[in-house]
């Protein structure tokens, strides 16, 4: 039950091509990450929708192989929402 940081980044960027993605391995165990995703695709979406979009990009790994991903999403060129 672990997942490589690069793999998380790759999956997110596959969906959010313009995104700035910052991922941190919080515990150094390949299981607890934080991610900040900044993308123009979030414009006009609620926070829940934004997070759902990221979870979707991870193709079902969230909650399975990936135990913990503290998530922050921001609109690119926009204010925080």
């Amino acid at each position, binding site marked *: 039950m672990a997942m490589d940081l690069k793999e998380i980044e790759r999956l997110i960027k596959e969906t959010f091509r313009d995104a700035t993605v910052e991922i941190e391995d919080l515990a150094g165990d390949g299981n607890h990450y934080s991610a900040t995703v900044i993308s123009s695709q979030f414009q006009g979406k609620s*926070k*829940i929708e934004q*997070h*759902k979009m990221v*979870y979707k990009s991870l193709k*079902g790994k*969230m*909650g399975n192989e990936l135990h*913990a991903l*503290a*998530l*922050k999403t921001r609109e690119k060129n926009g204010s925080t929402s």
Partner: protein
Amino acid sequence: MDQQVKDLITNEINDNEICLFMKGTPEAPQCGFSMAVANILKVLEVKFKGVNVLESQNLREGIKEYSEWPTIPQLYVKKEFVGGCDIVKEMFENGELKNLLDQKSISYKK
């Protein structure tokens, strides 16, 4: 998801203005993320129902499908899905959570 689980979830959400699906109970959370959200609600001194998803595997999987959300905890306020730990924490820190409670006419500790 079977109808029984779906009904159970719907009833909890309908019967409790603030309903937190969590691992463990508000008194004894079994996961740090669930604890974080329970603690926020405690700080705000709002009355909430903690539903322990560890009591039933069907419920644990069912709530994910119900909310289309892959993780637990999950917070509902007046039947509206608010989010999981990250969103609730962020909303608490930037004041949006209090705004939401105001909008929904739920009293909390100012």
